[in-house]
């Protein structure tokens, strides 16, 4: 059985480097650029959201000793960065929303390890900061409902996803009408979904999927301009920096989760 309790935690294999607050080096975490989202997985997946152990991910928010008495309900994860890669966006968002728990979801094992080490190193060298971000290795196209309850998330990010150009591989794209149903389920009404890509064809695809979907509507331009998160989309991640270096164009689609209007 692959499914055991909880998500693979953020602690565990802490290396010497991160204990000293040194950032992990990417050269030791080389990984392929792509991973097959259709393959049956061999990593543990929580049976249901109740079994996600947040104390492993956010130890500061879930202290081990419960002092008794009335306690406020434990915080929940509100932001999800799907396909977080090397975690640039999480690191950028963390100081902007210091009280919001965020999680990165990444399918590639080594990349997830890197992000784990990176967060631990950042926490060690900046005490009191970066306690609200974590990462989990999972296939978010298959297991989103295993991690989040209905209407739990307020923001979801899909930055520079795999373009899958061939038509027969379109079903591997992380944004599709089918999958948007599931994303809409885990997002609260009013929550915002951010997508960005440097591939024009994929940009159009993502925008049209979102436009067609009855549970999403486009966020007006003036709001997009005022949103501090938007700037991070095209600057914070490793992929976006690469695009900027090469002078590439980016295409974003930013949509809000709305409630269904039955005509």
């Amino acid at each position, binding site marked *: 059985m*692959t499914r055991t309790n909880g998500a693979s935690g953020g602690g565990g294999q802490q290396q010497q480097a991160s204990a000293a607050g040194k950032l992990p080096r990417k050269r030791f975490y080389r990984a392929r650029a792509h991973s097959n989202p259709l393959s049956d997985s061999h990593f543990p997946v929580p*049976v249901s*959201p109740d079994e996600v152990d947040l104390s492993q991910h956010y130890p500061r928010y879930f202290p081990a000793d419960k002092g008794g008495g009335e306690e406020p309900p434990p915080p929940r994860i509100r932001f999800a960065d799907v396909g977080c890669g090397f975690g640039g966006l999480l690191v950028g968002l963390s100081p902007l929303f210091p009280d919001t728990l965020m999680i990165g979801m990444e399918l590639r094992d080594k990349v997830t390890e890197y992000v784990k080490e990176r967060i631990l190193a950042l926490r060690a060298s900046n005490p009191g900061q970066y306690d609200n971000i974590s990462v989990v290795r999972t296939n978010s196209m298959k297991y989103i409902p295993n991690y989040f309850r209905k209407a739990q998330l307020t923001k979801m990010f899909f930055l520079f996803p795999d373009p899958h150009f061939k038509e027969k591989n379109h079903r591997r794209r992380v944004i599709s009408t089918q999958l948007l149903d599931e994303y809409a389920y885990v997002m609260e009404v009013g929550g915002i979904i951010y997508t960005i890509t440097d591939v024009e064809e994929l940009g159009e695809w993502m925008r049209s999927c979102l436009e067609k979907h009855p549970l999403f509507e486009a966020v007006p331009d003036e709001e997009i301009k005022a949103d501090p998160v938007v700037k991070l989309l095209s600057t914070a991640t490793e992929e976006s920096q690469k695009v900027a270096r090469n002078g590439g164009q980016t295409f974003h689609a930013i949509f809000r989760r709305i409630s269904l209007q039955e005509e």
Partner: protein
Amino acid sequence: MEDTAVEEAEVSGAAEFAPALIAAHPHGNSVAVAIGPELRVFDLKAGSPVLLSDDCDGRSHSDAIRAICFSVSGALFASAGDDKLVKVWKTDSCRCIRTITSEKRVSAVAISNDDLYVTFADKFGVVWLVTLGEDGTEQVSVDNKPVPILGHYCSIITSMKFSPDGRFIATADRDFKIRVTLFPKNPLKGAHEIQSFCLGHTDFVSCIAFTSMSENQSFLISGGGDSTVRLWDYINGCLLDTCQVRDKMGELLEPNETDDSSLAIADICPSNDGSLVAVAIQSFTGVMLLACDVVEKKLSFLKVITMEKSYIPTSLASSFSSELLWTVMGASNMPNQASSQLLTRLRIVPCFQKDLISSNNSPAILEDSEVPHGEKFLLALQGSLDIVKQEEVLASVLAALKVSMHKMLVKKHYSEERREQRKRGRNDKKIKN
């Protein structure tokens, strides 16, 4: 260990076996049995086998039928399977009114409670919808192709049911999930709003059923490869109770009979009033009965009905009007099958209702002489009356069915070395060399 067993089945290229299926008309007018590509229907009112006529587009099923169902009203019947055909029949005229071609093999089929739509799920996890005419006749609208309404991401959908009030459509898959989706007024645009996910099974979900087909509050019951039957509040996606069938079977079976894969739940069937649930288990010669207390929200073990040796039901059915529990056993493509005839075996449990909870007597099973319409009925649906001959054939079914279900639904687990070895043998790599 398990690794090699699965591998062997793969290597020997064992044919896929489809279990025999049974469905009962909601008002008790008829009973249908599907075995391989054959559809056998018996009219209980007239007491004669039904001749199905197919006057639209003539294609009949050519491969194993994987799903059959009557609509709630009893006016329509649908069948679908590995030949990628979905056929909708009118029950009064026994005529096929629609034949729909799917792109992929079909694994589940359902008819909406108002008889307006038929939905079917393919092996890629996509649920398609087709509009039927007002009165069930073929509608000659311009755009009457199947439209996709929802999807389980690349998973096999094993069971699909409409809720009693028609507001929801529930789908179960091999990835341990049950999804409950709002069925919109205009479903042609897709069913996008998910009401809940019922998560808790730790292996594939093989069957789901709603209790109490009335307007009262209803619950969802599911059975799976983890040999549990679970009771759900499907509106909120809450697990209310779990019945560990494995533990119960452990007390009843010999130790050597309880190996892992064989205690998967094959089918479940709630009684009319929702107080009882009949459970068919892959290695158990009979049916297990659970009491379902909708007030306390509990599922508890009641009793087992043991049947003749080597009779392991593959499918269960009941109807609103009568208190009969229909069970069938059989499989298509059976090995070393002498005749070309596909054999099944039927057993019927009378008094499938509340009284069973209080009575201490083990419920009777109808003898072959006691079944409605006797020999005529059995000949029509079983294909043969010679039970002794059948037993031999049916005994061979058991093992084959288990392997087949295991192969289709259980996730393969390879050891680290095996995985590396398989990676080296990948087809796309071979082409390059």
